[in-house]
């Protein structure tokens, strides 16, 4: 019996010794990016500790039963990390590093030029990143502040889904610069688009006769909202007379397009710009 007790004691001690030496690693479930923390290493004796992350590998000799201090620089990348401790055998534990607070917006506004009064013509989207360039997956609300050059500023709020917020909006009725600023807390990012006149509306020209020539000039070319079409927009004048048919394409300069034709007998002249047809002049062979 005494011998049995001795054996039991010895077995218990041996078992205890085995448990005492077994290394265990105790990690938090989640850590915020860039925040130093400690990992408790259970057991006794010496061991090798490894930390594996998206952009980091640490390998250190450690004493079990102590805390391993993980520096803020070692956990800047969000993602899954594996802590492994080996003293003969290895044990491991995983934890997640989550993005820190929003610090940067990657903001896109599309397109850079858009016709006025167009439905769903402007798209804005913003990715939310922290100071370490991790995508912030915690839901937040991005405020898109829209400031046209004339008229009232408006604001549209859009919640983030998986780190991205987006919205679509109509262009306003007046041409000019529109600034859209994405705002999240103290983080701001601004982009500018240019609203330009839409298709011309009520295109009209007049003729001034001079010898066998006719000088043609449009009235100021505007869209249906009264916005002048930008200089450089091409206007086409087409003449049909006894010599045949000829077309002159000329750009708008200071809001007006001008050209001249030599005419031979009765002539008809038409004007067009984009999809808009203007008035037609019938010169009836006066020249």
């Amino acid at each position: 019996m005494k011998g049995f007790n001795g054996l039991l004691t010895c077995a218990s001690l041996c078992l205890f010794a085995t448990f005492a030496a077994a290394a265990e690693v105790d990690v938090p479930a989640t850590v915020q990016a860039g925040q130093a923390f400690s990992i408790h290493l259970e057991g006794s004796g010496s061991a090798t500790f490894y930390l594996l992350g998206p952009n980091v590998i640490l390998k250190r000799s450690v004493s079990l039963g102590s805390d391993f201090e993980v520096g803020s620089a070692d956990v800047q990348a969000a993602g899954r990390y594996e802590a492994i401790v080996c003293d003969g055998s290895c044990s491991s534990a995983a934890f997640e590093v989550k993005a820190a607070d929003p610090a940067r917006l990657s903001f896109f506004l599309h397109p850079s030029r858009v016709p006025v009064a167009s439905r769903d013509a402007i798209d804005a989207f913003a990715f939310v990143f922290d100071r370490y360039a991790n995508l912030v997956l915690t839901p937040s609300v991005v405020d898109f502040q829209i400031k046209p050059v004339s008229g009232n500023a408006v604001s549209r709020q859009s919640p983030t889904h998986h780190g991205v917020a987006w919205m679509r909006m109509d262009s306003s009725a007046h041409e000019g610069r529109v600034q859209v600023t994405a705002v999240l807390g103290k983080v701001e990012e601004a982009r500018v688009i240019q609203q330009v006149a839409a298709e011309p509306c009520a295109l009209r020209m007049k003729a001034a006769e001079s010898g066998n020539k006719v000088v043609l000039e449009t009235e100021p070319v505007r869209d249906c909202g009264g916005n002048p079409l930008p200089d450089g927009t091409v206007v086409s004048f087409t003449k049909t007379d006894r010599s045949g048919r000829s077309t002159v394409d000329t750009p708008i300069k200071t809001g007006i397009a001008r050209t001249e034709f030599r005419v031979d007998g009765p002539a008809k002249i038409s004007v067009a710009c984009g999809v808009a047809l203007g008035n037609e002049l019938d010169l009836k062979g006066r020249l």
Partner: protein
Amino acid sequence: MKRLLVNTKILMRRLAQAVGFVVGLSLVSVAQSSPQVHLNAEGLAPRPIEELTGTTIVHHYAQAWSDMAAALESSRPGTISDEFVGQAKDRLKQRIAEQAKAGVHVHIIDHGHQLKALFYSTDGAAMQLIDQAQLEIQTFDGSKLLHTDNSLHKYMVLMTPGADRWYVRDLQEISEKDF
């Protein structure tokens, strides 16, 4: 008239199902050296995906994983492919350099990826996806096996187009709770 409308709706629904099925089937990488990647782009907003874009994404994402696995196994930075750019490339390069310094490497047995497209910008400049990958990751110090992890991993992926391919710009492993 009402019956015609109902029939048209049924026809449209069946057509949509058929298209989804075809897209689902066709967007699977077939290269033997690359892992299998399946893309689901159903309900993608604000812009739907074109089939060619889907095929290109599947191909280059599979290639990126194949190249990343090779680079992490060899710990040679030169093996990082052009499939990665920006943050994803910087982090991978850093990880490989650290691996080489510590004498640690990993062997990835890739059992395939289920990609789900979440966001595709209207101008086509960025696509966000979530990847559920069944991976067996073996971590070695020299030739000593330290740890084996055989589990489902989830990644938030940001891809952007280049001249001839879609690049992996961000690859961030996330937890179940994040999605």
